[in-house]
């Protein structure tokens, strides 16, 4: 099926590769009998959930498997060289000069106490000792230019660069010796959508220019569709499907691939939510609005994270209000102000008519019981010292909801079942024994047990595997009607916000730039910033190339335009009033 490229010798041939990790409980087979060939100039995506063996396979090409992992069968051929037969010194020479690896979170792999330029020189000197200074300078300048950075960046320290710039420096570092193969392991996972698109374009351009092979590791089907030529789908260490992007996206054969593609929520696409659950929500006792922002702003030193903002969430009918924006837009600041963790600089936050900053001890406990949160990082939310049921049991008792241990146990089990977890399997485990998805569902279960009136979900699914995102979001969505919980959904993901929310606010540099019902705001954006966000989403659809920007897409113009444009109000929904400036 890929015959037209096989005239030349392939860059990389993996034959029958198996990788195993001996552990006290027996040998774990991380990769099982994998065969794959990568041709010159081709981009191949490795896609699969965490633990599916995609990074392990890539690392074996570099002979960089973590101890005690080892390649047990098969052969790795890099442009005619048998990688597994190389000794440590030969392998050292091969790395970077013939195969470069851009690790996950590469932005943190730069040395913080060295300027960029000497770090690039180190890479050259390690392979070509004795290169003259002027030669080094010329090559580092060229490498920086090739990734679209001005040459003066070489004189800066890593902390002076933004995340996207650091990621490009890492790409420059990877290509400086023009390798035959580049391995990029989720190179954009820590970046927001706009920067992600820029960085991916840089990587594609440069790979085309030097004509090397590229392995792109990721779990985002949309990003893959926009970036690679061939896709290799991995599941539990096995290659379940391999073919061109076209074949796989248009006619996936393996059920797992079909799952992966259908689990990506699309703006305007089919909803992943369960529309049937429309139970009558319990009535609220208070007549005061549930949450009111009154001229709330937040200033950190000279930076204004949030400009004065006023709104009222009535809360009589449970609603989901989405707050959308890039990192640094002030959306998380808003979340922590609502939770009372962070006092506003001006204005006040009223919960059922009471100022959050002036609560007595009793009122404070009452507020905590009524306002709960689901945070971004499911790995950090459990105390590693306790079994996971501590996180569920403790607040239940603390808020006086418990009527004895048996009742607590029953409530915990019910909550687990409600989010689709088997209580016998998860409740008595330690956090590190559970996957990210299981933990995040437990946090949702915790919120459910406490049946708060308001739930603040701060990027609840951004660190969870793609296939689980929809499940967790529909868990949260179902709570809304079943328990009458109003939800503030803070996210950078417009597609999910489109589906779950009743009202959307787009935040840009601390200002609300566009607000209204999701069908209007996300389905038909008017403000330049909202358009920019929508354009940056990688669609898992080949006909819809990444937005309509083309090769020389430059977001800075649109951002400048966005700064000068005023707020666009796209209509109101009952129960939520945003005060128009």
């Amino acid at each position, binding site marked *: 099926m890929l015959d037209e490229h096989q005239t030349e010798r392939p860059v990389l041939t993996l034959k029958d590769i198996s990788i195993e990790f001996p552990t*006290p409980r027996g040998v774990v087979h991380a990769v099982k009998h994998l065969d794959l060939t990568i041709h010159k100039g081709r981009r191949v995506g490795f896609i699969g959930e965490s633990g599916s063996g995609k990074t392990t396979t890539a690392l074996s090409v570099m002979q960089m498997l973590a101890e005690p992992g080892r390649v047990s069968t098969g052969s790795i051929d890099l442009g005619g060289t048998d990688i597994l037969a190389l000794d440590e010194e030969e392998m050292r020479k091969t790395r970077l000069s013939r195969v470069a690896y851009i690790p996950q979170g590469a932005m943190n792999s730069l040395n913080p106490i060295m300027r960029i330029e000497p770090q690039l020189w180190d890479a050259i000197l390690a392979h070509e000792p004795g290169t003259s200074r002027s030669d080094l300078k010329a090559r580092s300048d060229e490498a920086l230019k090739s990734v679209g950075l001005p040459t003066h960046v070489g004189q800066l320290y890593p902390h002076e660069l933004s995340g996207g710039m650091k990621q490009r420096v890492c790409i420059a570092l990877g290509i400086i010796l023009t390798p035959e193969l580049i391995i990029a392991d989720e190179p954009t996972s820590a970046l927001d959508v706009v920067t992600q698109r820029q960085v991916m374009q840089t990587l594609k351009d440069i790979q085309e220019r030097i004509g090397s092979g590229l392995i792109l590791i990721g779990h985002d089907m949309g990003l893959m569709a926009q970036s690679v030529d061939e896709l290799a789908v991995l599941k539990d260490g096995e290659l379940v499907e391999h073919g061109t992007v076209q074949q796989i996206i248009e006619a996936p054969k393996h059920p797992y691939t079909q799952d992966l593609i259908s689990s990506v929520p699309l703006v305007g696409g089919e909803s992943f939510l369960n529309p049937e659950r429309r139970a009558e929500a319990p009535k609220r006792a208070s007549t005061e609005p549930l949450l009111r922002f009154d001229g709330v702003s937040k200033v950190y030193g000279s930076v204004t994270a949030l400009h004065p903002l006023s709104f009222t969430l009535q809360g009589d009918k449970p609603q989901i209000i989405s707050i959308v924006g890039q990192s640094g837009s002030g959306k998380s600041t808003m979340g922590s102000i609502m939770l009372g963790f962070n006092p506003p600089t001006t204005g006040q936050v009223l919960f059922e008519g009471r100022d959050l900053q002036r609560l007595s001890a009793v009122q404070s406990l009452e507020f905590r019981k009524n306002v709960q949160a689901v945070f971004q990082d499911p790995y950090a939310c*459990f105390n590693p010292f306790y079994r996971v049921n501590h996180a569920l049991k403790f607040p239940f008792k603390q*808020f006086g909801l418990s009527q004895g241990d048996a009742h607590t146990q029953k409530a915990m089990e019910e909550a687990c079942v409600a989010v689709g977890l088997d209580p016998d399997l998860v409740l008595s485990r330690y956090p590190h024994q559970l996957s990210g998805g299981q933990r995040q569902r437990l946090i949702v279960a915790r919120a459910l047990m406490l049946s708060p009136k308001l739930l603040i979900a701060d990027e609840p699914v951004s660190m969870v595997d793609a296939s689980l995102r929809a499940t967790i979001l529909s868990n949260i969505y179902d709570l809304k009607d079943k328990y009458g919980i109003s939800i503030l959904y803070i996210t950078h993901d417009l597609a999910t916000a489109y589906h779950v929310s009743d009202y959307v606010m787009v935040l840009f540099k601390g200002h609300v730039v566009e607000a209204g019902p999701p069908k209007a705001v996300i389905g038909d954006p008017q403000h330049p910033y909202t358009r920019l966000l929508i354009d940056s989403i990688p669609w898992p659809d080949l006909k819809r190339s990444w937005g309509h920007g083309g090769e020389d897409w430059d977001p800075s113009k649109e951002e400048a335009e966005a700064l000068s444009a005023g707020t666009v109000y796209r209509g109101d929904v009952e129960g939520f009033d945003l005060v128009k400036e």
Partner: protein
Amino acid sequence: MADHVTDNAPMTRAEKRQARRLRRFENPWLNPKLMWGAGLLIGIVMLGLVGRMLWNLDLVFTGSSQLKLPPVGFENLRKQPGVWGTPLGTDGSGRDMLSLIIIGAPNSLFVGLLASLIGMSTGIFLGFTAGFVGGRTDDVIRVLSDVMITIPPLLILVVFQSSFGDVSLTMMALLIAGFVWQSPTRLIRAQVLSMKQSGYVQMARLSGASTGHIMFREMLPNLVPYLFGSFIANVTTSIVTAVGLEVLGLGPQRIPTLGRTIYEAINAGALIQNLWWWWGIPTLLLGVMFVGLLLINLGLDEVSNPRLRKLS
């Protein structure tokens, strides 16, 4: 994971060794360093306990035996052979060396443990206060501990102890404790500051937990490996300080300690008279104590920092 487990065939010797290493990797407390270190220290404590039961401790008094007798199997300069009545020899005033170390070695360890315990408790209290309260309180505690770290403890303690004259072991431990609280304070403050931002502390705050609960139930258990390590390091410092003072002739005058014995040996010219057992045996015991503490510390490092654990 069950389907990944394959071979049930009998293991070869190399595989058994590998399996043992892996078990050790999984359960860090089965650490040879930790076990050896603990063994050495327990040995010293047992010497004190068993010795008290089996040996006649009245031999510790001046003139209870012949002067300057060598250990059994050796001869001193006067050609006197060692006798079984005093198996490790006697010192310049006729005290039995075995009785001296039975009483002295646990004393030195006691001073170290007590001083470290008091220092750690102060450190935990101050570190948590600084990390949690913040602001002015944090500034005061931080500056105080930073300043105290730069002052050489022996200098101050020499002045203190010479003005106190004869002190008890407990008093000495208290004085030393005044100089070992700074590093745990700094360590715990730093950890508390970073843990305060962690997800599980935020979750606990969301759960309406009190400050006390967050400090002692959520944070402290996760600090245990650090506290252990810091504690053992402090015991070492405290013993070194105590012995230093004793060798200078300060500290308790009437209670036998290892440092005091070395002081007396040096004072009586044991080095030129070739009375090696007089200073050698206490020095050896101190050596054993320090090696034991060092091994425990290295072992604990591996427990709290999995990256230091090696499979080979």
